């Protein structure tokens, strides 16, 4: 059973490499997108920290800024 699943009548090398390429592409795209998101969020939090209290209050009045600053549940 295991032998057949791995070698697939000699086609295993083709089948497994196609699936492996797909999974590697998924992981690479996910990591790239995630790192871009984290970088932008860090930049936003750092910029927010430099605002004086009046500007910070004004910025916080926008719901979207509050959402970004809160611990958004992006994985």
């Amino acid at each position, binding site marked *: 059973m295991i032998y057949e699943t791995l070698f697939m009548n000699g*086609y295993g090398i*083709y089948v497994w490499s*196609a699936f492996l390429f797909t999974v590697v592409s*998924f992981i690479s*795209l*996910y990591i790239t997108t*995630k790192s871009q998101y984290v970088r932008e969020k860090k930049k936003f939090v750092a910029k927010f920290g430099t605002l004086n209290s009046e500007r910070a209050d004004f910025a916080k009045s926008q719901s979207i800024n509050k*959402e*970004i600053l809160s611990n958004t549940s*992006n994985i």
Partner: protein
Amino acid sequence: MFKFLEPNRIFSITSKAPRYVFILFIIVFFIGLFEALILSPEDYKQSHSVRIMYVHVPAAWISIGIFSTITFLSLIGYIFKIKNFFLISKSLAPSGLVFNVIALVTGSIWGKPTWGTWWAWDARITSMLILALFYLMYLISWRIYDNNDKVYKISSIIAIFGIINVPIIKYSVDWWNTLHQPASINIFSKSSIHESMLLPLLIMTAAFALFSLLIFLMKYNTELIKIKNKGLDRL
């Protein structure tokens, strides 16, 4: 008209959704892999190499679907001046390109045991390669131009020219003599694929669609934060 689609309103949803989409994607993807690699039968002609179909076909479908969506949103965005549609289009493009590359590479891997060659300048394969070039041009246009109005215009033009290629991809196997086989699944007529193969194919398509939704949401959130970063500079 499209006020409900304003970024400020939908960010609360798009920022929370990726977690749930990710969990759902993992579940559907593993069921799909089990179906595709273990449960589905081998083909009477192609033997086990037919299993490559379960990644090749969904990737091709999704990449074509994403490009069509990009064109539609760009066109509507340009006509009605809805900037958010351009942002959605821009966020969809990376996963579209990756799916296009997966379709080309897995198709090439499938070609070797089936046709005896890794690559042929066949109408279907060449038109898919052209689609990848349009994806690249689309993404590069967003990198090159800083001016919003210019990038909206250029990216829309690229999408509109690129969409001409989509029906060519679809009908290339009927219009020309190609190595690539004709469609096995038809929406309006009886499909020639057996249910035991159709089920894993549909599950893998659902998994790929969920993955593209996940990447889209993450990319869209990144773009919104980028805009908000610029907003903080102006305060």
